């Protein structure tokens, strides 16, 4: 039992580390991307929005498979990382981070994009007439007004990363300490018929996910979560 405990804790620690790293990176990349999607009139808007939303509908194994091919020794990215001396990304923590970012991208980008769109042009125009340049308008008007969307995005991105399985298995394998997260550890428990241990982890994940969603819905009581995670222009029932 002692061994099980430490393995579980290791998986929990790794999962939290992964989710933190992924969420921070996604906020850094997703916020400008959401800003661009909310304001552009470019013909690339629709293709890019669709690409970002893809993980919502795609089986994780499909995404994982392509990433494995890309980042593998014969893939485009794989050859580049090898040439740069980084080595291969699959079955490493870095590979897991990249895969998780792609997989959780829509859960971060869409709430922020929706929040930016909800602000509308007027507050930004008003700020422009009050001597605020583009950067100041973004930092001092758009971001504060979109803060609920940003918080929702961070929470959803974090929770979604904690809960992923398929991509992790494809890209990370199930290496203790390196790529074994809660969901794959749980899978291992079940494979080994260790049902009490599986119960324990499953309950932790269940409670965590419920708590997160409860918090998000408290934050936006009008059910904005569904609206904010719906792909652009597609209302969810």
């Amino acid at each position, binding site marked *: 039992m002692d061994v099980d405990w430490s393995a579980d804790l290791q998986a929990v620690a790794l999962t939290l580390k992964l989710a933190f790293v992924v969420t921070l990176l996604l906020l850094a990349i997703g916020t400008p991307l959401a800003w661009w999607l909310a304001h552009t009139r470019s013909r690339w808007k629709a293709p890019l929005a669709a690409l970002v939303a893809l993980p919502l509908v795609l089986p994780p194994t499909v995404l994982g498979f392509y990433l494995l091919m890309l980042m593998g020794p014969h893939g485009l990215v794989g050859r580049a990382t090898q040439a740069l001396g980084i080595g291969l990304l699959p079955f490493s923590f870095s590979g897991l981070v990249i895969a998780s970012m792609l997989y959780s991208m829509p859960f971060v980008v869409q709430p922020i994009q929706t929040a930016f769109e909800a602000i509308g042009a*007027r*507050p930004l*125009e*008003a*700020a*422009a*007439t*009050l*001597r*605020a*340049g583009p950067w*100041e308008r973004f930092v*001092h*008007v758009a971001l*504060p*007004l979109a*803060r609920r969307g940003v918080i929702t995005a961070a929470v959803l991105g974090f929770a979604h990363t904690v809960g992923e399985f398929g991509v992790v298995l494809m890209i990370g394998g199930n290496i203790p300490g390196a790529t074994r997260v809660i969901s794959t550890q749980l899978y291992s428990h079940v494979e080994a018929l260790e049902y009490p241990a599986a119960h324990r982890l499953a309950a932790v994940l269940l409670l965590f996910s419920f708590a997160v969603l409860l918090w998000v819905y408290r934050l936006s009581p009008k059910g904005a979560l569904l609206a904010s995670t719906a792909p652009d222009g597609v209302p969810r029932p």
Partner: protein
Amino acid sequence: MIEASLRLPRGAFTLDVSLTLPARGVSALFGPSGCGKTTLLRCLAGLEHAPGGRVVVDGEVWQDDATSVFVPTHRRAVGVVFQEASLFEHLDVRANVEFGWKRLAPAERRVSIAEAIAWTGIESLLQRATAGLSGGERQRVAIARALAVSPRVLLMDEPLAALDAARKAEILPAIERLNALSGITIVYVSHAIAEVARLADHVVLMEAGQAVASGPVAELLSRLDLPLPPGEDAGVVLQGEIGALDAEWQLARLDVPGAAFWTRDPALPLGHRIRLRVLARDVSLSLVAQSESSIVNQIPATVEAIADDSHPSQVLVRLRTQGGGSALLARVTRRSAQTLALAPGKPVWAMVKSVALLD
């Protein structure tokens, strides 16, 4: 002085104006909804870019596409008050007012925060969140916020349109005082002739994207050749001062060029500058002075022009008071016009039933 020549296609119409506005006082862009006045205002602010256009304010070139100059909005010394106050919901009232002021170099701060607050009367609101403010309060905060950037010109886009009558009555005097207090040039967009009559010194009449007439308010509103709102709203604006007071009967005499009107005492001191509005429907005509009439204001004048009114039974008559002083409009029936043989040059008495003191 504001010079603008702008051309911008806009769906239903093409904004196509070339105009000059005085650097002093309040200029009104007046016209029906959808005539392009808001688009013009947005071009002045730099929120829209009319290709090939030119905007020069007090000698400062804000846009001149011939030399590829387009100063972005945040570098223009402009203040804008939108129809909805558009306050920053994440900031309290004081932070809203200070938002633009903070971004000015100290040397540019000709209007202090204290002045902006005092002129708009928002002292008691400063610590409040914007969410709890009434419509009128929000608009006053928006005006203070725009004033605090010490603009060369304050652009106001129908700032009263979204307010009910009571709120309008609360804000109009504040806007009226602004120009006198701050000396800042105001360009005021409105489709409400009552607001224009009350606030404007200079009026640009707009129709279908074009500026069809431009001139001092008293002259422009008395013109019969313009598509001014007909019907109940036709009338003139006169400017003058309190010329005499009659304490016994609680009356005051309002002196305007070439005419004087007795009205109930507005409790203003002698010599106080006033602006009054005389509606065409309140003016009837007579060939002789009436000694047996309750109408006290009988003004000798000369017929200048006669034009059709909105209803075929009526005509609008433009009069000129003595010495070429002021223009008046009178509405009479076509039959009366014929009975009295009204024609340009004919001397008449204008019987003025009531005048409205605007400030």
